[in-house]
């Protein structure tokens, strides 16, 4: 089977810039095209991740970016999968390339985020689980993150100090990342003084909401070998975009109840484990092969859950793995060398692509002060609400 490679990457720095998401997307797309050594005229498919918070242009992000870049008569697609939108768009582009229906594709995700908590879309919609959880329960995103964190404390003896250690690590990783929004090294004392948002999580345990954009240029093997510097092209070994398997008895945002375990066998794996397993299976690789990983640290505590979900350690062992230094730059398998969401905040449809941009930068050996030595295999994993998984594995 033929392969797909990433020829170029581009980002617009994360922050609160107060401009249209389309402007950030164009900056990232132009940077990715230049990095790939191609122009818009070389692109024959454009896939985008949607944003729900920027009106109609956000729902039709593919055509919004196509228009903003200058109509080029391209087929476009727009994908919505919440935080996993970027990976679903990447997968759409990859499928086109592998089917021989396009040679070079451009994938873009960009967002302009509101201040503070994410809320549901306006209107009175009792049939919408996202509306219900806010109206009936006041169950914000940090509420769910806190429920997971508290469960980790009760089951495995994790402490707020463990969560703070994740923040300390990621804040140091992101210091030298020019695309990161927050470039400040946090100390445990500073974290302990941060206000409680949803016990046990403090403000700095929880990722912010950001503006930002990321883009990648992809090509099929046979096309890629005719273009650019082969040493800077990275292989897409797997893209997993799986849903949970019924019955999903783990609490999942934005639902107010899980599936019932009655009347069906339990799924082979819990959802987050299954997201990674599908990617490992496609790539023919396993956790021991990873040089580094970008995991979706919506909260500091959630990063520890991901260590176990992607198989870096067994259940309840993440705190020990963290404190061993294995997941810190210089360790066995650095996690979130970019600084992660702790340093970026989430720009929803851009985030899965931003993770991919970081892996490409690491595998190329172009990450500067945050470089993972000798990186050859990278995994990026993320989960979007409403049952969207996303995991991408890249190899040199």
């Amino acid at each position, binding site marked *: 089977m033929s392969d797909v490679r990433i020829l170029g990457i581009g980002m617009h720095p994360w922050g609160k810039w107060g401009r249209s998401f389309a402007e950030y997307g164009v900056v990232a797309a132009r940077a990715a095209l230049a990095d790939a050594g191609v122009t818009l005229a070389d692109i024959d498919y454009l896939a985008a991740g949607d944003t729900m918070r920027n009106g109609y242009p956000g729902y039709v992000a593919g055509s919004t970016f196509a228009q903003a870049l200058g109509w080029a008569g391209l087929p476009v697609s727009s994908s919505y999968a919440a935080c996993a939108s970027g990976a679903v768009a990447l997968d759409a582009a990859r499928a086109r390339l592998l089917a021989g229906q396009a040679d070079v594709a451009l994938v873009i995700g960009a967002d302009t985020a509101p201040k503070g908590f994410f*809320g549901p879309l306006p209107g009175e919609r009792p049939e919408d689980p996202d509306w219900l959880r*806010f109206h009936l329960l006041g169950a914000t995103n940090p509420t769910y993150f806190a429920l997971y964190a508290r469960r980790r404390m009760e089951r495995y003896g994790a402490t707020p100090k463990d969560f703070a250690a994740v923040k300390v690590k990621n804040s140091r990783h992101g210091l030298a990342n020019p695309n990161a929004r927050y470039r400040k090294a946090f100390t445990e004392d500073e974290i302990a003084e941060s206000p409680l948002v949803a016990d046990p999580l403090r403000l700095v345990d929880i990722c912010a909401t950001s503006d930002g954009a990321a883009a990648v240029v992809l090509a099929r093997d046979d096309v890629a070998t005719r273009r650019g510097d082969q040493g800077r092209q990275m292989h897409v070994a797997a893209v997993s975009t799986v849903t949970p398997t019924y019955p999903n008895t783990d609490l999942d945002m934005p639902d107010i109840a899980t599936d019932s375990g009655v009347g069906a066998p339990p799924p082979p794996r819990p959802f987050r484990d299954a997201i990674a397993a599908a990617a490992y299976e496609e790539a023919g690789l396993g956790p021991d092969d990873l040089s580094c990983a970008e995991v979706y640290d919506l909260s500091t505590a959630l990063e520890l859950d991901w260590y176990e979900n992607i198989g870096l350690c067994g259940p309840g062992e993440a705190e020990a793995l963290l404190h061993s230094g294995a997941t810190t730059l210089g360790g066995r398998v650095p996690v979130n060398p970019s600084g992660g969401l702790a340093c970026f905040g989430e720009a929803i449809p851009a985030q899965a692509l931003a993770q991919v941009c970081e892996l490409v930068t690491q595998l190329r050996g172009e990450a500067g002060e945050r470089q993972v030595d000798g990186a050859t295999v990278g995994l990026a994993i993320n989960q979007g609400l409403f049952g969207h998984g996303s995991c991408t594995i890249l190899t040199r």
Partner: protein
Amino acid sequence: MKPRVPVLEGFFSDVDGDPRLLGGHCPRCGAWYFPKQWSFCRNPHCEGGPLDDAPLSSRGRLWSWTDNRYAPPPPYPAREPFEPYGVAAVELPEEQMVVLGQLARGTDTAALSLGQPMTLVVETLYEDDDAERTVWKWRPEDSG
């Protein structure tokens, strides 16, 4: 005195001091749903037939909990001044599912522990000109 009215119809009942969540139950495979949401069973091992309306167990075990210190955005009807509120996830043994609810007002979250027995109660979520709007909540059993 204002009438007490559920904040949304169809989610819970409170007859004679016996609060119950109103869910769906599949007569074929036995699966439960809350809220009922759709008319049919979505267990892929089942034939996907119509669900019965059925109340859920009103007791379960604490799966996790938190205490929210900031006012959420609308459509949460936050009181002025804002009052912190707890949220609990409770596992229902018979239904083998976890259901969220706010913690009953006055619950001491520092005294909670995983697996402790919880019971369903109905409390006022907010008040408007016409009524006290009520919602289901979870209360630790040993707190009376």
